[in-house]
């Protein structure tokens, strides 16, 4: 069957590569495009948020960014954003939690029963409620992590269980009013000092402190990145980025300061966001959550206790759901059986709009906050315009689809 040896004369065997390694195939071009891709994914949603804000600012003839309305947006969306923080961590770990709305409702009901019906001092009640939320999270986390039931099923069950438990606790009735102290957490403001002037001074000071802190952090990070020879943004871009951050902070500060100051919810949100962003980005635990979600088997063989990490993620989600439930009850100033319905869907949507991946291992806390704000601004803007809730839902659904579609499209282009 075999006949001739076809040696190709024009291609002699040249010993050109001493190590037998293939040549560098990743050219400058692919490196630049990869760099751009990763930044499109990071900043795409921020750009989208700015665009939506501008659009509605124009459409509502300037009502959107009126100081009163900005305060409203923060107070209306606080509990969803708190849930979104927990949810994005759950999603990064490769799971989902459908029960958070019911848990929030249940905790709201529990707070009403404890603080109103039994007259418990509200700070004690808050601690008990958050503890209960963590306990519920541990219960669900146990079934998910240690028994191995898919989180979708466990939390679908939890959704039904705690919705029922809410109605049982409240016997179908609302309990009102909530203690004044708790109510203030949700609708109060940073107290004014001294005489009432045009601007709310504590807010201005707080804003200034945050601007300085943000600048210092940015500059320090860049400096040490340079020292360790890592890739950094070009100087003009970096300056533009810093200017944008400062400008955004200044605008929000002045807007809030010209109404009644920073709402307490806003402070809680900022603190939670910063803490969780730090935990997920800079701590061992955060890294382990990404590892478990990205490749559970590889994480386990690297000595990570997957089950424990998963349990912690759900304990945290439960505690944050409790915080959200308390904020919502405080805002309504009553505990109602309907509290928390569909919260889980808003939180999940926020996480995905913010760039989380349904297969786990990808997502950021800041992204989820931006995603939640996109939804919040849409809600608020469309309500000002008097668009019915039917159309609002359709639009929000399409935004979710578009955001994730954009992400998938980018990833596919980046992967090839």
């Amino acid at each position, binding site marked *: *069957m*075999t*006949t*001739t*040896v*076809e*040696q*190709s004369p024009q*291609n002699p*065997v*040249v*010993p*050109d*590569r*001493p*190590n*037998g*390694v*293939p*040549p*560098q*195939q*990743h*050219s*400058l*071009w*692919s*490196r630049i*495009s990869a760099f751009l891709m990763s930044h499109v994914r990071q900043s795409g949603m921020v750009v989208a948020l700015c665009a939506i804000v501008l659009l509605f600012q124009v459409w509502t003839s300037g009502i959107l960014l009126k100081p009163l309305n900005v305060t409203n947006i923060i107070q209306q969306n606080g509990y969803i954003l708190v849930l979104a923080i927990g949810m994005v961590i759950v999603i990064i770990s490769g799971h989902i939690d459908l029960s958070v709305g019911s848990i929030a409702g249940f905790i709201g009901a529990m707070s009403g029963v404890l603080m109103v019906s039994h007259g418990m001092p509200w700070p004690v009640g808050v601690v008990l409620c958050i503890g209960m939320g963590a306990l519920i999270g541990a219960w669900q986390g146990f079934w998910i992590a240690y028994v191995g039931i898919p989180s979708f099923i466990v939390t679908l069950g939890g959704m039904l269980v705690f919705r029922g438990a809410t109605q049982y606790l409240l016997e179908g009735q609302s309990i009102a009013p909530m203690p004044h102290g708790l109510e203030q957490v949700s609708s109060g403001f940073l107290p004014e000092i001294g005489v009432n002037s045009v601007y709310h001074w504590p807010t201005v000071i707080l804003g200034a402190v945050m601007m300085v802190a943000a600048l210092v952090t940015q500059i320090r990070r860049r400096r*040490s*990145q340079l*020292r*360790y*020879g*890592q*890739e950094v943004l070009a100087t003009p871009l970096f300056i533009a980025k810093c200017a944008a951050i400062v400008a955004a902070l200044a605008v929000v500060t002045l807007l809030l300061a010209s109404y009644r100051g920073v709402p307490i919810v806003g402070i809680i949100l900022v603190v939670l966001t910063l803490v969780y962003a730090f935990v997920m980005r*800079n*701590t*061992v*635990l955060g*890294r*382990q959550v*990404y*590892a478990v979600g*990205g*490749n559970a*088997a*590889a*994480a*386990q*063989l*690297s*000595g*990570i*206790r997957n089950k424990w990490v998963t349990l912690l993620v759900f304990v945290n989600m439960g505690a944050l759901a409790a915080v959200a439930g308390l904020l919502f009850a405080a805002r309504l100033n009553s505990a109602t059986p309907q509290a928390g319905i569909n919260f889980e869907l808003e939180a999940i949507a926020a996480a995905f709009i913010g760039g989380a991946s349904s297969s786990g*291992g*990808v997502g950021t806390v800041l992204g989820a906050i931006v995603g939640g704000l996109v939804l919040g601004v849409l809600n608020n803007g469309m309500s000002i315009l008097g668009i019915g809730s039917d159309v609002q839902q359709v639009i929000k659904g399409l935004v979710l689809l578009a955001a994730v579609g954009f992400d998938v499209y980018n990833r596919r282009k980046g992967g090839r």
Partner: protein
Amino acid sequence: MTTLLEMRGITKQFPGVKALSEVDLTVRRGEIHAICGENGAGKSTLMKVLSGVYPHGSYDGQILLDGSECEFKDIRGSERAGIVIIHQELALVPYLSIAENLYLGNELARRGVIGWDRTLSEAKTLLERVGLRESPQTRIADIGVGKQQLVEIAKALAKDVRLLILDEPTAALNDSDSRHLLDLIVELREHGITSIIISHKLNEVTRVADSITVLRDGRTIETLAVNDELTEDRIVRGMVGRDLTHRFPPRPQREIGDVAFAVANWTVLHPIDQHRKVVDDVSVDVRAGEIVGIAGLMGAGRTELAMSVFGRTYGKYVSGKVFKEGREISTRSVSEAIKNGIAYATEDRKHLGLNLMDSIAKSITLPSLRKVSRRMVINEHDEARVAEEYRTSMRIKASSANVSTGKLSGGNQQKVVLSKWLFTDPDVLILDEPTRGIDVGAKYEIYTFINELAARGKAVIVVSSELPELLGLCDRIYTLNEGRLTGEIARADATQETLMRHMMKGRAQ
């Protein structure tokens, strides 16, 4: 013998990379034609051009089948012309039956209604042709990889294949399954089916192929006819562009110390079938500065032994003890094993070894995050520095340590896995198939690293299916068969034949 296929001057460009330049390939009717080359030489790209994965117009050059030019727009187009490609990752649906898979996308249906009787009877005939004795109604998930490969070939036969392309068909198969598969390809040749096989396994290539085309850096280097004078070294020379008289680095003088690590009377049950002992009363040891091999056919219990010792990550532990430097230690969990200075680099780096989304840096520090953090807060700069050190010292080819591991070649991924375990600072390294699926040049580098580790006094256990690799690397080789230890052979006495004899010992033929 006439020419069946001619590919002329094929050039395929990706953004910034020329994957193929002016490649010529001539395949004669009724031959088995092998394509050899290092990873990245362009073999798979060439086959994707041929099978229409890259449609006509996205490349330059001509494809002539039976002398007439073909312009395939997609895979369906090439299949209509009788060209079927079987990819490395099998494209079977695990929870459908063999018969359903055979006719997937090609159903024997009338007006959209499947004729099950006809499907089953024809499936049976096809399975007989490939020598697979399984009911057509068996689920794919219930048969092994070897049999799945046969199903893929049967599926190709169902499409009236004239030219069968197999991409690394035996990479995941054990020796007897490989032999069966290759025999089948030879048999199909008798029935007029021409095959192209892409393979790294040169011994198989020289056994079954009639001619071999060698690619390097996206170019055709040469086409060789297979005869008795053609040696594997001759093929390798074409692949790497130099004589590879030394496929293994010279062994440095090293001092072999006391027993550093020992596993005694280790027994493990199968995770599902708890009557089956996957590892049965096995005792092995390794000395400081020594490289010990573990040989065995697939299913012999090598990986199972290694993984169960490393944090009991496989099966159900029954009995056995682990000793380090004479003291009994616990390796009940992975973190305990790591803490005791043991590292295990898995055979399956894509699924068990790396999170392919993560960067090189994050992959390297994952098992030892505490080393780059203080009070549980990671110091990103320490991490970057460590990653950079390993990137340089292990010669990982990537523009920076922030590149995600999914974008690296197999050899570079394996270097990341090794770096990751070296950073845990182990005394004992268990390396499971350390060179699986990586090219000759990278293999040589990995062997050099392994030698260096031993020279630095580490105790190294190498689990491998490639006997030449064990012979070229190890001081001592254990053989396993069906979960039992069947031999312990010193380097001086070890040949492929003696090893194989021990690996088959006690096996019912």
